[in-house]
């Protein structure tokens, strides 16, 4: 958007929305929307509380563990599917099913199988993130230029060498793309898991706030969560751009 020859930065309209929020809050149109300034003030007090820090720590733990499993399992499975036709044909239908299935319906199963705790949340997170990572890693291996593989063979690369020096790097842009989308999905997964298993992390915190009608606290936590999620996704997009500079040129 260009105003008077000056280019407005991309996200600058959020300031307008912030002012609108403040206005709606000041006019006391609804009890559920306190002024933004009040929310920000609450934010400072909330961040200091033990309850918030505990929720954040638990969420970060569940998120990192869930994403870790999704990546450690997802990438090798995807690469194997890309290289082995039989495995690919056996697994691909299920990967596609779980990619688009409403995974929220599986959370109750996880709850009865793994208990109402951290384990179920971690598995939920993994389930949300892993399928797209598998699919993209597979696509990354599938698109590797045949002449690149033949080049490696003709220069006498061992299979191990070929894997680490050719396959991994050639598929890296796609793999990272998958990891980025997988992580964004995992953020949603960890929150959905905590909402349904509402005795840990932010799930518990939300229960506490809404039971006591602490709107300012609620919005403050939401802002923190959304800002974190947005930062993670932008950071990953930045990383992806850094790596995929050569993807366009092959």
């Amino acid at each position, binding site marked *: 958007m260009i105003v008077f020859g000056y280019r407005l930065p*991309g996200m600058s309209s959020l300031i307008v*929305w912030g002012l609108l929020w403040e206005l709606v809050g000041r006019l006391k149109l609804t009890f559920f929307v306190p002024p933004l300034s009040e929310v920000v003030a609450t934010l400072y007090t909330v961040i200091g509380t033990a309850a918030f820090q505990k929720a954040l720590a638990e969420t970060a733990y569940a998120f990192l563990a869930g994403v870790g499993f999704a990546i450690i399992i997802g990438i090798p499975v995807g690469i194997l599917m890309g290289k082995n036709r*039989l495995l690919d*044909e056996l697994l691909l239908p299920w990967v596609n099913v779980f990619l688009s299935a409403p995974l929220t*319906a599986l959370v109750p*199963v996880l709850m*009865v*199988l793994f208990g109402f705790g951290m384990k179920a949340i971690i598995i939920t997170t993994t389930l949300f993130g892993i399928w797209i990572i598998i699919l993209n890693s597979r696509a990354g291996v599938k698109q590797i230029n045949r002449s690149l593989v033949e080049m490696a063979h003709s220069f006498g690369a061992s299979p191990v060498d070929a894997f680490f020096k050719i396959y991994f790097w050639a598929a890296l842009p796609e793999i990272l793309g998958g990891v980025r989308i997988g992580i964004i999905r995992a953020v949603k997964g960890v929150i959905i898991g905590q909402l349904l298993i509402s005795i840990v992390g*932010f799930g518990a915190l939300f229960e506490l706030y*809404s039971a006591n009608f602490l709107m300012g606290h609620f919005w403050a936590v939401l802002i923190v969560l959304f800002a974190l999620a947005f930062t993670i996704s932008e950071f990953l997009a930045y990383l992806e751009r850094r790596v995929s500079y050569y993807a366009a040129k092959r």
Partner: protein
Amino acid sequence: MPNRSLLLKILSAVILFGAWEIAGRVPVSFAFPTFLESMAALVRMTADGTIFTAYAETLKPLIVGVAISTVLGIAIGLWVGLSQFFDWLFSPIFIVMQAAPLAALIPLLVLAYGIGLTSKVLVVCIMAMPVIVLNTSSAVRNTPESMKEMGRAFLASDTAIVLKIIIPAASPVIFAGLRLGISAGFIGAILSELKITPTGVGDIITYSRSIADYPSMYAAIFSIILLAVLFLNLLEKIEVVLFKGNQRGYVSD
């Protein structure tokens, strides 16, 4: 070999369901019924009509929410894609919404709108709308420049360019966004039934869990995943038929 791909699909299903059956017989957990028990429960619920009444309830917020998201999402998306000002104003909101775990809004929606249909519809909407808006607007923005130039060179009015070039050119991507939105809408519909109040399929899941009738619980979950996957596959097939060749033919090959 008559049809390798079909055979492998069947084999793959047999392996998965076989593993489920064996794991249920071991059993790996008291809460893990076998595949056959679950299917028997599904047949029973279908026979006595429980499943149909449940879906009538579950599909209500889903259909209303998806309908609202579709109309509103495509309208906003077109607007954002066509006008720099609306792009600047609205895009950041939807980009943040797309990245953010919007499920966290549910407790707030319940406080504001109660535990009725309104809240559930809103949950479906906030889940489904961002991807519909973002796909529509980016599809509109990415209409090949030469097609718009062609329209202008052959004296098309601005309205004609939007109606006869931009919208048809964008429709495959809009449709794909719709499919993703509906997929997210399913997540929202189930989430709201499990989190807000147990109704429909969510009720079967919650109730059968509480009385430890695990086969019924697994059957309900199986059925909703099956329904979602079948429906989304159907949409994908429609997409292929509807937009056959639409993406080709842009580029010179």
